[in-house]
C-alpha cells in the first residue's frame, strides 16, 4: 500500500460522517427528542463538516477528480491558509467536533464515523500529506502563428485514397494531375 494517499479516504469518510451527523441531528430536532440541543448542535456541526470536506484536495500523484461545483468551496477553504492545509489541524478539529455527538443516541453514529475519519486524517498527517486546492489550469499555449488564420482555400495537393492505393501497384496508371499548381509557400 505504498502509494496510498490516506487523505482521499479520510475525505470521503468525513463527508459521509458530516451527512450522517446532519441527518441524526435533523431527526433529533424534528422528533423533539430528549437532548435535542445536542441534535441542534449536530445539525450545525454536520453542515460545517460537509462544507469543509466538500472540496477535494489535489492529489500528489495522478489526476484529481473534482466534485461538481466545488470551485467556490475550494476558494473559501483555501482562504483559511494553514488551518485547512494542515491535516493535523483537521484531525484534531474533527475529534473535537464529534465529542458532543456522543451524548445523544441520534447523533452517536455520526460521532463515531467522524472519529474514524479523524483517525485516518491523523494517519495522513503523519505521512506528510497536506491539502492542495484544485484550481483551474491557466492555459499557457503559444499564440497561434500568423499563417494559420484562414482555413485552407484550396484542396490539398494529394490524390484521393483510391488513386494512392493504385500508386503502390501501378505507377503508370496512377498518374494524377493536381487541380491547382503546387508552389512553395515562400
Amino acid at each position, binding site marked *: *500500500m*505504498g*502509494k*496510498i*494517499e490516506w487523505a*482521499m*479516504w479520510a475525505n*470521503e*469518510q468525513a463527508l*459521509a460522517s458530516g451527512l*450522517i451527523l446532519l*441527518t*441524526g441531528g435533523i*431527526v*433529533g430536532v424534528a*422528533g423533539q*427528542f*430528549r437532548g435535542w440541543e445536542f441534535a441542534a448542535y449536530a445539525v450545525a456541526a454536520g453542515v460545517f463538516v460537509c462544507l469543509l470536506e466538500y472540496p*477535494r484536495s489535489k*492529489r500528489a500523484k*495522478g489526476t484529481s*477528480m473534482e466534485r461538481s461545483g466545488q470551485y467556490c468551496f475550494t476558494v473559501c477553504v483555501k482562504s483559511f491558509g494553514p488551518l485547512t492545509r494542515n491535516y493535523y489541524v483537521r484531525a484534531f478539529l474533527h475529534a473535537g467536533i464529534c465529542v458532543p455527538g*456522543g*451524548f*445523544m*443516541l*441520534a447523533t*452517536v*453514529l455520526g460521532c*463515531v*464515523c467522524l472519529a*474514524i475519519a479523524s483517525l485516518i486524517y491523523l494517519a495522513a498527517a503523519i505521512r506528510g500529506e497536506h491539502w492542495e486546492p484544485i484550481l483551474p489550469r491557466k492555459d499557457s499555449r503559444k499564440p497561434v502563428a500568423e499563417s494559420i488564420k484562414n482555413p485552407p482555400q484550396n484542396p490539398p495537393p*494529394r490524390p484521393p485514397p483510391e488513386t*494512392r492505393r493504385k*500508386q*503502390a501497384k501501378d505507377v503508370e496508371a496512377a498518374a494524377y494531375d493536381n487541380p491547382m499548381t503546387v508552389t512553395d509557400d515562400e
Partner: protein
Amino acid sequence: MAFLVERWFYTRVLLGQALSWARAPAACLNFNCMLILLPVCRNLLSLLRGSIQYCSRTAARQLDRNLTFHKLVAYMIAFHTAVHIVAHLFNFEFFMDAQLKRNSSYLPFILSEIGTGDNASFLNPIRSNETSPTIVMFTTIAGLTGVAITLALILIITSSMEVIRRSYFEVFWYTHHLFVIFFIGLVFHGYGRIVRGQTPGSLRTNRPDRCANRFDDWGKNESDCAVPEFAGNPPGTWKWVVGPMILYVCERLVRIYRSHQKVVITKVVMHPSKTLELQMKKKGFRMEVGQYVFIQCPSVSRLEWHPFTLTSAPEEDYFTAHIRIVGDWTQALYEACGGDKPEQQEAWKLPKVAIDGPFGTASEDVFRYEVVMLVGAGIGVTPFASILKSVWYKHIQNNQEVFTKKIYFYWLCPETQAFEWFADLLQSLERQMADRDMADFLSYNIYLTRWKETEAAHFRVHHEAENDPITGLKQKTLYGKPNWDNEFTSIASKHPGSKVGVFLCGPPQLGKSLEKQCLSHSEADVKFIFNKENF
C-alpha cells in the same frame, strides 16, 4: 410478519407507526443481504453461464452485469439501513418516554412495568428510568450488533467510492472484507429478541380490543383481563442469509484450491509500452476466447488477486496475459519478474504465481454471430487479441467451418507506443491472410485519437509509404475518432438480413454511443446486438 395485527397492539401503543417503519426495511434488508453475496460468486456464475447458454443467449448475457447488480443491491442496503435506523431512533425515544412518564393512569407506563419481576414477560426493553437510550443501545445485543454492522457498512461504502477504488485498490479490497463482520453481526442482530409482542396464550386472557382501556383492572379477581405477557420473535435473518453465505464460502474454497495448483511462468516479455507479457502453463488449464483470469503473486501480496484478460488463443498450449503497469501491485510484479534489471532473469528466479479462473465474459459469444464488429479502446483490445488468434488457428490448423464469416475490427488508441505488441500480431495475421488469399475475412481500422505536433509532421512526410509509419501494417492508420454512423450504415448495407454482434471493451461513454447506434441502425433486415465487457 404482519405487525398490524392484534398481537402487536400493545407494542403499537408504545411505539405507534415507528414499529412498522422499522420492521419494513428490516424485511427488505433480509432480502437484500441474501442477494448481495450472489453476484460475486464468480465460479458459480461461470457455471450458470455455461449451462444457461444452451437455453437462451440473452439470459446468459445478463450474468455479465453482475457487478452492476451488486452495486444496486448495495445502494438498497444503504438506503434501507438508513430508514431502519431512523425508525429505531424514534422507537428508543418512545420506549424511554414510557419509562419516564411514571403516571399510573398512563397506559404506556403500565405496559412498561409489566415483567419487572421475572424479567421474561416484559414488553419495554428499557427496564428502568435511570438509563438513557444510548446506554441501552450499548448494553443490548441488538444495539451493539447494530452499531458494529452499521460502522462496517459505512466504512465499506466510503472505501468503495470510485475515486478510492480506481486509485487505491488495496484500501477498497481490504476494507471490503469487513463484510464478514457485517454478516456475523447481522445474524446475531435479532438474538436479543428485543421486538416483543403478546404471546398467543396471553391473547386469550387479555384481548386488547376489550381490555386496553381497562388497564386499571388487569389481573384483578373480578376482571376478565389478565396482565398481558410478551415475548420476542425468534431471530429470522439467518434463514435468509445462510444459503448465500455457504455458497460464498464454497466460492472462496474453490479459489483457494485453484490457487494451490502449480502455475509455471514459461516466458516473460517486456514491451516498451509499459506492458508486461507473461506466458504461463498450468496442468489441466482450458480456456475459451476472451476469458479472464485472476492472478496472485504471493511474493508481491498474499491477499490480492487481480483480473487480467487472456491474450492467447485456446488452440495454443500455453496461456498469456498482457499486464499494464499502472499501480503498486503491477509495478511490484514487474520488478519481481526482473523488469528493472538489464539482463534476463533466470527461469528459477521467476516468482511463483497462482491463477483463479478462467472466467467467461461476453467475448465467448463472438463466434455465434455471422458478422462481428469488435471495438477496443487502448488496452481494451486485449480480449480481441485472443479472438483474432483463435480465428486464425481455427482456419488454418483444423480447417474447421467457422460460423463467423466477416470480422470488422476497430482499435481506438490515444498513443502510438501502445500499438507495439498488438501490431506484431496484426502484422503476422496480415501476412498470413495475404498468403492464403483471405484478405477479405478481417477488415481492421486503427484510429489514433491523440497526437503531438511533432508526430503529425512525421505522418505527413511518410504518407505515401507502403507501410503505415506507426504500425508497419499495410492498412493505414486513421486519425481522430471514427464516424460510427457511417460505419454502421456501411456494414448494414453490406450484410442485409443478418445479425451483427457488436463487442466493446472500452470506456462507458463509448459504450453508450455504440449502444445508441446499435438501436438506431437495427432495422427490419439487419440487427445489431450490443455486448459489453464488464471491466
